[in-house]
């Protein structure tokens, strides 16, 4: 009874917590309570399908504006265009709910980092939607670490739609760039990548970068190479007085070169790439991986950093190979009978496989079967040949498996040929024919000779049995309860 109470209590807590979790997507952000704003102001523009989308044309002089710093508290600082005298200005119109504005923001941050330190370039973002809350804008600002000027069109909210009339395009995000004389050099709806903006600013800025970039450091997630993780995640930090544009990394290990571009990670602010190695080459090698990085800055200056080494080691997984499935059927093979064997082995990486059979003439023969690998399972299929005149009761073969960790198994299988004329039986039989669940039905091409597979191997066809076992267990458990009742 006490257990029942506890169960009920847990269920109740579960229900309550689920309800709470599902409510977590409600935004409990207060709407703006600033006394200056009037969202219902009839002068503020509403969506107009007929409006022809217009940007301020390139070559026009930037018109003055009046804005307030977003983080000015109850008495925000008013500013106008003169704040950016003799500066190249990049400004964008955005809103916190605007997906494309969000998409662009990491590259905007990078653009700022590339050029703001020159003291020639300034940035300003303007929240243009007066119906969204200050809290939403604040969250957006914080999420993207926007350290440049940030404002919203408070003046528009007070009934003066000049700013929107002058710069609004009918879409957001909208971007403008002006030169140091306040002439618009770029006006664009939507963000089409950082590169064109970098090129634009480069053409306006007075400084020309002739210095090559430099390598700073390389880090990696390396612990050891394993079968499940035969790769290295490499992060490179490099510096340049105007920022690094791209890095191409080359990894050389065991004579194999891998070259790939290392994209910029906007979160870590480093260049990174995963170098993945071929496991067939990897398992025999230990030693250094050597890296070369070709670093290019935004002005086309390049620097090649060589000789970065990492001592690596391959540590194989330590599981032994396990035979998980075996089937055998008799087939006609070039006027002889043969036993067609299908075998599945679980191991992360089998290095060597040999089959040794003792045929009806007493001859030992050894060969190396091919396999198909799927995940950690290897499937082998091969024929054991014997003559029609055999008088054998048993047919034996050995399978020898070795994985790259050096784990070996050598397993013997005795296949009992059931023939009423034979009085002998397999001496080493462990399982009766009933133990083998996967003898396949013979078809028209196959001999009518019946066949049992006898094995001293461990569990066969385990995966087929498991779901049934679970269902069976649950049924029997339930039945037991019924009986008790």
């Amino acid at each position, binding site marked *: 009874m006490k257990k029942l109470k506890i169960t*009920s209590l847990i269920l109740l807590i579960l229900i309550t917590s689920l309800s709470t979790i599902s409510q977590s997507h409600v935004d409990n952000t207060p709407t703006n309570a600033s006394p200056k704003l009037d969202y219902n102001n009839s002068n503020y523009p509403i969506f107009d399908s007929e409006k022809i989308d217009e940007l301020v044309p390139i070559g026009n002089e930037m018109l003055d504006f009046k804005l307030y710093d977003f983080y000015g508290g109850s008495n925000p600082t008013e500013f106008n265009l003169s704040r950016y005298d003799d500066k190249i200005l990049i400004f964008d119109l955005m809103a916190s709910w605007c997906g494309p504005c969000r998409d662009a923001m990491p590259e905007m941050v990078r653009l700022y980092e590339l050029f703001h330190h020159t003291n020639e370039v300034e940035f300003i973002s303007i929240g243009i939607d007066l119906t969204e809350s200050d809290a939403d804008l604040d969250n957006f600002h914080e999420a993207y670490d926007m350290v440049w000027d940030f404002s919203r069109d408070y003046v528009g909210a007070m009934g003066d739609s000049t700013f929107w009339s002058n710069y609004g395009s009918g879409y957001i995000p909208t971007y403008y760039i002006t030169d140091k004389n306040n002439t618009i050099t770029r006006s664009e709806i939507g963000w089409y990548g950082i590169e064109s903006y970098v090129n634009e600013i480069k053409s306006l800025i007075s400084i020309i970068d002739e210095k090559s970039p430099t390598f700073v450091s390389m880090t990696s997630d390396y612990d050891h190479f394993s079968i499940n993780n035969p790769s290295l995640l490499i992060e490179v930090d490099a510096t340049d007085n105007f920022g690094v544009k791209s890095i191409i990394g080359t990894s050389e290990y065991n004579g194999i070169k891998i070259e790939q571009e290392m994209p910029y990670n906007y979160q870590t602010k480093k260049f990174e790439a995963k170098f993945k190695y071929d496991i067939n080459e990897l398992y025999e090698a230990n030693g250094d991986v050597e890296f070369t990085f070709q670093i290019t800055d935004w002005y086309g200056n390049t620097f090649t950093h060589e000789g970065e080494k990492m001592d690596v080691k391959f540590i194989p997984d330590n599981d032994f190979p396990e035979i998980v499935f075996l089937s055998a059927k008799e087939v006609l093979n070039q006027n002889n009978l043969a036993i067609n064997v299908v075998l599945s082995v679980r191991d992360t990486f089998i290095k060597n496989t040999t089959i040794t059979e003792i045929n009806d003439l007493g001859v030992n023969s050894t060969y190396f079967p091919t396999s198909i690998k799927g995940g950690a399972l290897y499937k082998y299929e091969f024929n054991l040949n014997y003559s029609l005149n055999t008088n054998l009761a048993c047919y034996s073969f050995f399978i020898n498996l070795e994985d790259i960790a050096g784990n070996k198994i050598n397993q013997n299988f005795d296949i009992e040929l059931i023939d009423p004329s034979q009085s002998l039986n397999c001496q080493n039989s462990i399982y009766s024919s009933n133990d083998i669940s996967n003898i396949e039905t013979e078809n028209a091409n196959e001999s009518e000779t019946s066949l049992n597979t006898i094995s001293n191997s461990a569990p066969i066809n385990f995966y087929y049995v498991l779901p049934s076992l679970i269902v069976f267990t649950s049924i029997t458990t339930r039945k037991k309860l019924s009986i008790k009742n």
Partner: protein
Amino acid sequence: MRDILCFLIIISLFVNPTSGVSSNITNVEYNPKNIEQGNNVTIIISFENISEIKNVRSFYCRIQPDYLCHFPILQLEPLENQYITTFQIKENSSQIAGFNFEIIFNNNTSIKYPNEHSDNFGLTIAEPAEGIYYYILSNENISSQNLTSSLYSTSTNTTELSQSELYFISIPLLMIITIKNKEYR
């Protein structure tokens, strides 16, 4: 004890995780169903009642190519138990447009639709930016298969169970099984 469990079952039936946050939307639709550039499209959001709703704002965006949002936003007008707006489609036959909306309640909380928990009301949903979903405004020339891999379109079958709905169903079932098992003992 059995009575207590039965009581809990009944309670759990009423604690549908989706109903706790529901803005009591009963339907979202737009007309006409197939849109073309220049068409006037009407978005209709139906509620059980709108007394707790302060405002509904809708955001109309071009999803692809060139993900952009139209501005100013669409303001919806209340009409009985519905919020409605009509606007003219600006996208041409090779472009895909979508809309989403935000319901602002009288207590200044808000909820955006569609979201990862919400019904799709038989409409196709896209997520062109992480966590920002849109109802796609259908264009016969562009089926949902044309949405790029950065987007996804959900089944238009509104009977498809969400994760929370599965919990909603499974919890009472779990409790019934528990009771029954106890009875056997």
